[in-house]
């Protein structure tokens, strides 16, 4: 029931040396199965508007959909929030002859957008990941640790990142990003690239 739906932080926002926004309710489906199966690949493509099964640590996008590599047998399919139940059901249907699991996890997550030239630095304060421009590029996704919790990060544009964490720690992750984006705390190591 869409009129009941609220995201974890109801669109919280902060403007520091980058812009931080909670992205609102996003659709997400955990899909586990055999990536090499033709049926599996076809099912993913059909549900994700043609976005294919990504390679290790990659994310593919098409239209409103994205498919992210999570592990050798797990994908995360992203779509508009309202469509997640139907798409999960469609996947389950398409894969009914396979050993696979498709489950709607949209509400288990909180999603944040970081926009601005300093986004790489904000994330590098929290995640043990090389965010240098030459090392982390659009099309990649990293599942990692953000301070004390699990998170996944990928780029949505040349200067923008999307962060996904568990819903219960949304306020913590927002607090981390807010603290790391405080004006005056710019690091300046990625500035000249």
């Amino acid at each position, binding site marked *: 029931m869409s009129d009941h739906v609220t995201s974890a932080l109801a669109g919280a926002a902060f403007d520091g040396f980058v812009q931080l926004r909670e992205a609102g309710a996003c659709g997400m489906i955990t899909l586990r199965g055999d990536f090499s199966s033709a049926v599996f690949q076809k099912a993913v493509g059909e549900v994700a508007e043609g976005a294919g099964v990504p390679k290790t640590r990659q994310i593919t996008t098409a239209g409103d959909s994205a498919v992210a590599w999570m592990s050798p047998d797990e994908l995360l399919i992203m779509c508009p929030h309202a469509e997640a139940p139907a798409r999960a059901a469609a996947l389950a249907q398409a894969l009914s002859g396979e050993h696979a699991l498709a489950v709607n996890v949209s509400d288990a997550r909180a999603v944040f957008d970081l926009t601005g030239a300093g986004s790489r630095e904000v994330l590098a304060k929290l995640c043990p990941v090389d965010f240098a421009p030459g090392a982390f590029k659009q099309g990649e996704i990293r599942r990692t640790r953000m301070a004390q919790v699990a998170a996944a990060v990928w780029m949505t544009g040349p200067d923008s990142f999307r962060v996904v964490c*568990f819903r219960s720690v949304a306020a913590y992750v927002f607090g981390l990003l807010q603290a790391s984006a405080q004006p005056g705390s710019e690091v300046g190591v990625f500035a000249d690239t």
Partner: protein
Amino acid sequence: MSTRLASGGRLIDRSKQVQFTFNGKQMRGHAGDTLASALLANDQMMVGRSFKYHRPRGIVASGAEEPNALINMGEGARFEPNQRATTTELFNGLVAQSQNHWPSLEFDIGAVNTYFSRFLPAGFYYKMFMYPRAFWKHVYEPFIRQSAGLGRAPKQRDQDTYEHFYHFADLVVIGGGVAGLQAALAAATAGQSVLVIEQTADWGGRAPVDGVADDSTIDGMDADAWVAQAVAKLDAMDNVTMRTRTMGAGVYDHGYLLAYERLRDHAPEAKGPRHRLWRIRTKQIVTATGAIERPLSFAGNDLPGVMLAAALRDYVVNYGVSTGDRTVVVTNNDDAYRTAIVLKQAGLEVPVIIDARPEGGGALMAKARDMGIRVDTGRAIAKVKGGKRVTGVQICAQAGEGSVLEEIPCDAVAMSGGWSPVVHLWSHCGGKLIWDDAQAHFRPDPSRPPTGASGEGFVIAAGSANGALALDAALADATAAGVAAARAAGGTPDDAPPPKADALGEAALAPVWMMPQGANIKLRMKSWLDFQNDVKVSDVQLAAHEGFESVEHAKRYTTLGMATDQGKLSNINGLAILSDALGQPIPVTGTTTFRPPYTPISMGAIAGEARGEIFQPLRRTPMHDWHDANGADWEPVGHWRRPYAFVRNGETVNEAVMREVRNTREKLGLLDASTLGKLIVKGPDAGRFLDMMYTNMMSTLKPGKCRYGLMCSENGFLSDDGVVARIDDDTWLCHTTTGGADRIHAHMEEWLQTEWWDWKVYVANVTEQLAQVAVVGPNARKLLEKLGGMDVSREALGFMEWADGTLGGFDARVYRISFSGELSYEVAVPASQGRAFWDKLMEAGKEFGVMPYGTEALHIMRAEKGFIMIGDETDGTVIPQDLGLDWALSKKKEDYLGKRAQQRSHMTDPNRWKLVGLETVDGSVLPDGAYALGNGVNENGQKVMIGRVTSTYHSPTLNRGIAMGLVLHGPDRMGEVLDFPGTDGKTYKAKIVSAVFYDPEGEKQNV
């Protein structure tokens, strides 16, 4: 007196005045000063009292090695003790106070200790404070606490912020002197990413200061000009990152490096974090960390006004500050002559250079003599005269025992005992040292570097940090180090020759560990090795005499090198004295261990962002804010916060709990059960898998039905419990305890990935996808029926069944399960709808008397029913059989995790304590965790225990104390009364009863 000179000072800006206070006294300095240089400019020679004897102490050094000038910095929320004045940049409004004195710096009562110093030798505390034992707590410890020194602890919360930064670089060069810069230039040609860090605010290190004395040049430029162009070149390279005020703090395994950036110490009012801890991964580290000058051990070498020769020169050249008008230079090497030359150039007096070497020095000595400075060779200082500052020196022959030949008035002494490479970072991760006889110091052994994952070295020392003390040698060594590091990191650097250095050559030094060589005990007792911990030559000799032969033992016995400076000035001198006392060469004695950090780093930097609201993650359910606004008394459950009770105005927490239990039993209660773990288990082998995971049979469960299940570890111990629902043919949903969700998910994955990797099962953790509300009480059905949309009647949805549907407009899955013994439903909705659903239940439930209840009411109600709680009735040593849960152990299954373990003799022992109910005879509440006493004592003389309380509450339903406990032969002893001594001195009497206190027939839930 010490003062600001009329000119000079390459680091200060004389046009910018800076105000600060020291011990409340207004003082002035210049932009670019350190606190130490500004104090000296204001004739503040004495800056503190020593740790043990409270002797007056002055500034000794000009950098990170400073042992004496430790300052209480700042006030209130910016107060911080033990800050080194030499590494504190001056800023407007700086407030500093000296430490370790009472009532004042000038007049200190503790200084009386110095007269008793004969009675406070090494190991004094160990010898003195042993007996009688009872004295320790009431006499010795308070006394030692009172007199033990250094700074005060801050009282207020730190107002600044801190952060971490994860950085990745192919190469890191630590140290921004000429060697570090040259190493970076040589390495950076390979195009790899290079990080260059320098602990001070300025690039260049010592070379610009030294160059003033001997007019040395690099590539035809003076050192300042060469440094400026080198920094400009590196700055212009895209692959090079340069940071000043950033110290290499520690080197760890696999190229992990911590660097400590001090961003706002010099500008505390500026926005942004005060410190940043860089957590760096790199392939190769070049340590161009320089060298530290050693003091000489002569009597009175700790008086204010006695300073390291190079530091004294630094204050003149860098800050335009003179330490005294008449400075005696005492040395065993050529470098100290530079100080004499610089002083003379600045128009100051150098009455004599005392050179312990019989032959004296080389070109620098000649230059000093040409300037008219008297040089006495083969001489030593017998004793420094003065009280709170130097007034003169007595000169003797170095070869003798200290007969005074001459007394020379002076107000400063510049001492140099040679230079020791800063090998700390090289050594942190296992790099080994070799003794360099010619230069009388330990330096890195290039054949035994710290090794990384590949077995190859990942640290290369460069310049004076590698023992290459002379300018030309340092630059050549740094060039080679930079090239080698780039190659080792997989790059191909250009092969360019090192820059051409033109400097005066130096004659060899002569090792001098004691001055004079045959100093008598009176002199040795006034010859300091460790200024900060008040350790003298005589103390180390005593330690050796008393059998502390290992350097590590001697260190701990004397406390040599154990102060906040970790012996940067004292270690080599101390172990030389120890070696001499033991009659063995220095390398045989070896060094103590170098441990990170290089100098102390702030607690704030270590914590980083983790403070206040983001100290640790708090997990919140979708209804968290409602709870918070409605009186929730929070209880931590894992990282979750759950309402313990919802407290109303005028109520105590306990009253709220009692009300919540009664209301739920009589009317209607709501519990936020969202935190319960929910795992989807799916696949053709899921049933078989769950039969292994749980002790009961799950494969036979019908879709639409629920079953309570137990999980054990492979050792048979009860690990988790919960209700399992079968969703469809190959899908189950397993509820876990709140704290168990992640653990049980990992447990399942571990078995699937390591043992049964060929079973077709997928597990997904959907705990946070769903908000779950327990709707409990006689009115529960009425509320759900009012919401409408699903048939929740007894007939349509029986006990231990579930159904999907739309309830009051919400996407819902309704379970008919009960953990309270009442008519009860648990309703799961998508988390995004959780808050709206909760609001709807509260609104619609008004007419049925709805109230939320918290975890304590939940606990009481389950205990009234005799339901176990993981973590209360279990503690990792309890098996289901102990709890009377044999009914949940399938006899039909060939195996389940824990089955075989539960057949071990100890597990089937009839003497295992078993679960029973306990009822106090007088209706009071048994103390939690209390033990039941048996007869007699065991083999250890302890009273025999025959049981313990696992859960205990006041039951508002029964209006009496109820408890559960594990008791020896408990189920066979119904009606027996046991004694439970409490920690309050009382003994509680409780009768053994059935654990099911309430509605044993289950009539309430089955309606």
